[in-house]
C-alpha cells in the first residue's frame, strides 16, 4: 500500500478560555474544565476559514514531501464549514498551492469525519495507480450556538496529508470504515448553527462507531492495542476519546500526544487529522499509530499507520502542532470572540 509522503497542520493564533465563555453565561468554569476536560479553544480570525486553513496546512505538506505541486493529481477537502454553499473550496486551495489545472478536485462533507474521508479517497487513488500524488485535507471553522455546550469546544484548524508511492514518511498498513444511519447531530439547509441529540451523541453515536471501527481494524490487521505506540480518536471534547480508548484497551500514555483537544478545541473535520499530525511530529521510525475518526450521522474511518526512517528528517521542514498550540497566541474576550465569529450583526 502507498503512504503519507507529506503532512502539515494549521491552528489559528486566537484563543478563548472555557472560563471566559462560562463567565458570559453564568456557568461554573470548573465543571466545564472537569466535565469536558476543555481548557481553551482556538478561534479563527475574521480572515480565516476552511480555505485559508487548508492552504496553510497544504503548503507544509508539500514542503515536507518536496514534491512539485504539478504532480498532484487529486485534491479533496473535507469540512462542514466550506465558505461557499456552491463553489468548491478545493478550486481556491489548488490554485493557491500551485496544483492543477490537470487535477481532480472535490469537497467532501460528513460532519467531523470529512477529513479522514478525503484522506481515504486520496490514498485509494494513489493505490490504484490512477494518480501519482493525491492530497486529502480535513479543516473546519466550526460554529457552536451561543450558550450551547458546543460553544466550549467548536474551534478552527486542520491538517493536510499528501499520499504517494515513493519516499514514504508513514506507511498505511490497513484501513477500515464503519457507517450507519444515526441522527445524533445535524444542520438543515439554511440554518446557521447545528443541532444535536444531547446525550444521544454519546453511546449510540460516538462510542458505537469509534469502537466498532477500531475493533474492526484491529481484527483485520491482526494487531492488539499494545502493538501501537500512539492512538488518536476523534475529539468532540476531552472526555470521549479517553473513554473510548480505555474501553478498547489503550492507555492514557498512548493517547496523550494526539489528544490535542484540551487546548485546541474540536476542529471537527480537522480534529483527529490534527491529532495525527501532532503524533507524526514526534513518532520514531517503526512506531505504529492508530487513528479513528468520527462523523455524526454517523460513521468512523480507521487507519493503521507505521512511521518510516524518513519521517524524522522530513518533519523538520514544516511547523509542528505543538509550536502552534504553545507558541504565540492571543486571548480574546467574549465580546471579541462574538465579533470574530460573526455573532454580531452590523447595520449596513
Amino acid at each position, binding site marked *: 500500500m502507498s503512504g503519507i509522503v507529506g503532512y502539515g497542520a494549521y491552528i489559528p*493564533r486566537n484563543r478563548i478560555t472555557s472560563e471566559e465563555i462560562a463567565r458570559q453565561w453564568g456557568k461554573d468554569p470548573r465543571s466545564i474544565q472537569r466535565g469536558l476536560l476543555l481548557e481553551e479553544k482556538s478561534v479563527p480570525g475574521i480572515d480565516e476559514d476552511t480555505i*485559508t486553513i487548508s492552504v*496553510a496546512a497544504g503548503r507544509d505538506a508539500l514542503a515536507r514531501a518536496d514534491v512539485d505541486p504539478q504532480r498532484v493529481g487529486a485534491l479533496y477537502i473535507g469540512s462542514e464549514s466550506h465558505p461557499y454553499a456552491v463553489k468548491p473550496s478545493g478550486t481556491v486551495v489548488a490554485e493557491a498551492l500551485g496544483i492543477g489545472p490537470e487535477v481532480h478536485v472535490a469537497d467532501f462533507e460528513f460532519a467531523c469525519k470529512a477529513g479522514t474521508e478525503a484522506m481515504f479517497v486520496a490514498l485509494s487513488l494513489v493505490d490504484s495507480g490512477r494518480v501519482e500524488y493525491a492530497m486529502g485535507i480535513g479543516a473546519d471553522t466550526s460554529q457552536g450556538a451561543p450558550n450551547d455546550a458546543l460553544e466550549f469546544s467548536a474551534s478552527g484548524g486542520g491538517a493536510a496529508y499528501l499520499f504517494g508511492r515513493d519516499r514514504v514518511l508513514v506507511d498505511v498498513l490497513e484501513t477500515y470504515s464503519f457507517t450507519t444511519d444515526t441522527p445524533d447531530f445535524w444542520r438543515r439547509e439554511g440554518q446557521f448553527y447545528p443541532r444535536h441529540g444531547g446525550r444521544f451523541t454519546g453511546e449510540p453515536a460516538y462510542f458505537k462507531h469509534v469502537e466498532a471501527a477500531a475493533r474492526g481494524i484491529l481484527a483485520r490487521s491482526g494487531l492488539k492495542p499494545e502493538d501501537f505506540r500512539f492512538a488518536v480518536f476523534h475529539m468532540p471534547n476531552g472526555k470521549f476519546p479517553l473513554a473510548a480508548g480505555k474501553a478498547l484497551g489503550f492507555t492514557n500514555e498512548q493517547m496523550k500526544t494526539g489528544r490535542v483537544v484540551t487546548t485546541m478545541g474540536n476542529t471537527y473535520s480537522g480534529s483527529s487529522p490534527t491529532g495525527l499530525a501532532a503524533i507524526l511530529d514526534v513518532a520514531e521510525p517503526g512506531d505504529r499509530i492508530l487513528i479513528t475518526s468520527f462523523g455524526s450521522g454517523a460513521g468512523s474511518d480507521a487507519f493503521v499507520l507505521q512511521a518510516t526512517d524518513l519521517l524524522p528528517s522530513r518533519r523538520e521542514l514544516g511547523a509542528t502542532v505543538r509550536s502552534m498550540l504553545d507558541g*504565540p497566541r492571543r486571548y480574546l474576550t467574549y465580546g471579541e470572540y462574538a465579533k470574530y465569529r460573526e455573532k*454580531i450583526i452590523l447595520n449596513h
Partner: protein
Amino acid sequence: MPSPRYWREIPGRYRLEAGRCHGCGKVVYPTRRICPACRGAEFEPVLLSRRGRVVTSTVLRVSPDDFVMESPYAMAIVETPERVRLMVQVTDCEPSTVQPGMEVTLEFRLIRKEGQSGILCYGHKAVPVVAADTARSR
C-alpha cells in the same frame, strides 16, 4: 473590486507570482510587460518568499465598509528578500505594535467579501513573526 479583475490577478494574489527581468534581474510585482529599470520586455516567473520586513505602516481606524469588522487594523509596506515591496494588511496582532523593521511572514487569508452575496477574495496578509501577546490577562 469586480470579480473579473480579481480573477485575472489570482497568480499574483494566491501564489505571490512575480516576474524576474531577463535584462537586469529586477523582480517586479505585480508582473508587468516592461521592466521599469531597463525597459526589457522578457520576464521569467518567480515566486516571492513568503516573508519580509515592514518598511512603513499605519493604523486604519475609519475603514472602508467591507473592513468595518476588522478595524482598527494595520496596513504596511513590506519588502521581501527579492527587494519587492507590497502593501498588505497586518493581521493576528495589536495594530499599534506594527513598526518599521518588524519581521513578518506572508500568510494566505480572506481579504474581503464582495458584499452579502458576492465572491470571496483571497490573498496574502502579513503576520508578525513574534505574533501577538501571549499574556492570558487583558
